[in-house]
């Protein structure tokens, strides 16, 4: 990578796989379970977090030398809440349809532990540029898992992807595609417990491919 030094590049690539915030650090699980019933919602959430974490990390990093350590968590919360509210207001004023799609996620973004986690663990001790890369990397790692989970849940649960029926028509009497051969959608995939199991399978696959990730107990 010509643009980034090796160390900077690692800030982006590490959280994608070997230090993934969801599967390795087990952060941000709540939103990963709540909104992954559809691929589209997963993608929207991934982009929203990318935006908030990228900017939030820079803001916190710029303020790192003036934030009193006793109330740093509160300061971080205020920064992320203010950022999210401003973004929400701007969208409501200039991109109303988009803001309607996002409305559910606003609360989930503020409470996403990955954001607080990166503010606390990285942005408070590093320069703005590195913090920005770290934010982008972690948000991308989070988004990647969300999109994988959303893909399987929507495909197996509803037989669609991004709303398009990819497996055929499941309505009795008009059966087509795989439904003709007796296949049925698994409605259970649309519920939160199956998101946890899907996530578990991802973690299993990841750790079986890289034994170094398995913790000693």
């Amino acid at each position, binding site marked *: 990578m010509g643009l980034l030094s090796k160390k900077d590049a690692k800030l982006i690539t590490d959280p994608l796989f070997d230090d993934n915030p969801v599967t390795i650090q087990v952060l941000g699980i709540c939103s990963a379970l*709540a*909104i*992954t*019933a*559809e691929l589209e*919602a997963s993608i929207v959430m991934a982009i929203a977090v990318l935006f908030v974490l990228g900017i939030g990390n820079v803001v916190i990093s710029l303020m790192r*030398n*003036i*934030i*009193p*350590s*006793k*109330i740093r968590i*509160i*300061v971080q919360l*205020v920064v992320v809440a*203010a950022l999210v*509210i*401003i973004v929400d*207001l*701007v969208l*409501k*004023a*200039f991109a*109303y349809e988009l803001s309607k799609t996002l*409305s*559910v996620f606003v*609360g989930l973004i503020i409470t996403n532990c990955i954001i607080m986690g990166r503010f606390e663990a990285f942005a408070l001790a590093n320069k703005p540029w590195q913090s920005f890369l770290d934010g982008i990397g972690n948000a991308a790692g989070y988004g990647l898992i969300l999109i994988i989970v959303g893909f399987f*849940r*929507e495909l197996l649960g*509803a037989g669609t992807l991004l709303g398009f029926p990819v497996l055929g028509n499941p*309505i*009795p*009497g008009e059966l087509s595609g795989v439904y003709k051969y007796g296949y049925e959608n698994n*409605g259970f995939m*649309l*519920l939160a417990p199956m998101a946890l199991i899907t996530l578990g399978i991802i973690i299993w696959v990841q750790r079986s491919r890289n034994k170094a990730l398995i913790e000693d107990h």
Partner: protein
Amino acid sequence: MEKRTDKNSYTILFAIGMVIIVGSILALAASGFKDRINENKRIEKQLNILYAMGVNENEGSNMSFVSKDKVGDYFSKYITKQLIIQGDNTTEDDKAYLIDLKKEHSLSKTANHQRRLPLLIGEKEGEIFYIAPIRGKGLWDAIWAYVAMDKNMVVQGAFFDHKGETAGLGANINQRFFMDDFIGEHLLDASGNFKGIAISKSNADPKNTDKNDNEVDAIAGATITGNGVSAMIKSELRLYLPYFKKLKN
């Protein structure tokens, strides 16, 4: 040596400063965008009302409102009358569609207040539509709808929306596969009593061919949102029954 930022006085000053700065930024942003946001909400209401009475650009299974530039013209063209029903009185008011249902609902709990019910009358290709805006509770937050009926309280079209139902489950009440099921459903039973339309998990009629059963097919995984829709229709649309009875006589 104690760092400057560890001092109590610094901490308190920082906190106060932060609250003032962030507070004023947010207040400024909120008041600066207020007019635009309200305007967007007004346009959205008009789009939804027109959608319910069939003035939309749906093609095949796609769902599409009329374009935003035309919505004002269409609204004045298709909506012929706006009524506010308060007890036995019916008054015309061209801002009836802007009535805050949430406020009316909480006001109706206080004594001596008779709830104001907005009802819009639209005409399209000779057909008359009676459109009632209603509001209820879903799983997480508010849900609302615009239901277009004919004079026999048979649903001619409906638009549902929600504030924060679960994405992929309850949030799907604003999708066509759910809303279109309501078209042709009766709100009254065979003997003319109000029955509402229940969101049913067991009606064994997924294609919704039986329009007289007062039931539409539920969304899997969205039981509570579905119950909320049933309850909203039952309690809110019932209030319009006296008006429709008067209409018949």
